[in-house]
């Protein structure tokens, strides 16, 4: 029991990542409304970003900025004192890509609404079948 609790608490970020990813997947698959689907897609993307940031996080470490940068030649940089900045940089790109996909998706939603005057997937399919 003690060990199980320890494992659960020390990896709580990863559990939340799994839960958020499943919430996003549920939103994409089960919701009929197109905007709700896009919100689900965004939740899934932020869940992946949470996973990557959790990989880089470290206890008793500071943000990856070197103190006294002007005389860094005299003091050695110990990597264990700093959080790994590589996942951060990758996830900056992922956030920008997420906003780009969001913009394109919402544009398509607006065009669909102009054509069919509804955002519900089943009503759109009905109107396609009628036409």
């Amino acid at each position, binding site marked *: 029991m003690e060990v199980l609790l320890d494992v659960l608490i020390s990896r709580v970020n990863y559990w939340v990542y799994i839960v958020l990813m499943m919430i996003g997947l549920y939103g994409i698959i089960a919701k009929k*409304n197109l905007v709700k689907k896009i*919100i689900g897609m965004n*939740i899934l993307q932020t869940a992946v970003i949470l996973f990557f*940031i959790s990989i880089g996080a470290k206890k008793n470490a500071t943000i990856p900025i070197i103190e006294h940068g002007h005389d860094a030649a005299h003091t050695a940089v110990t990597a264990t004192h700093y959080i790994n900045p590589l996942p951060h940089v990758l996830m*900056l790109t992922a956030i920008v890509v997420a906003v780009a996909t969001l913009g394109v998706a*919402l544009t398509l*939603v607006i065009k669909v609404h102009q054509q069919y005057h509804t*955002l519900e997937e089943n009503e759109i399919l009905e109107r396609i079948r009628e036409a």
Partner: protein
Amino acid sequence: MIWQIELLILIIVIILAVGALAVKDLLSAAILFGAYSFMMCLLWAIMGAVDVAFTEASVGAGISTVLFVAAVFRTSRRTED
């Protein structure tokens, strides 16, 4: 990393994610999604990813919410699920 605050924010994040998908009004869903993005931003500031945190605050919470609200006003607020 303060684990109490982190745990609290993780719980709030899950609640906001479920709320954004469950609420029956698209404008409310957009606002809840903005709150979700801000909580994610706080989470990343706690985990030491400050660059990701302020990118998320400006781009994820700011521009995304504006885009959602603009799209909802150009289409309709009605949703059935």
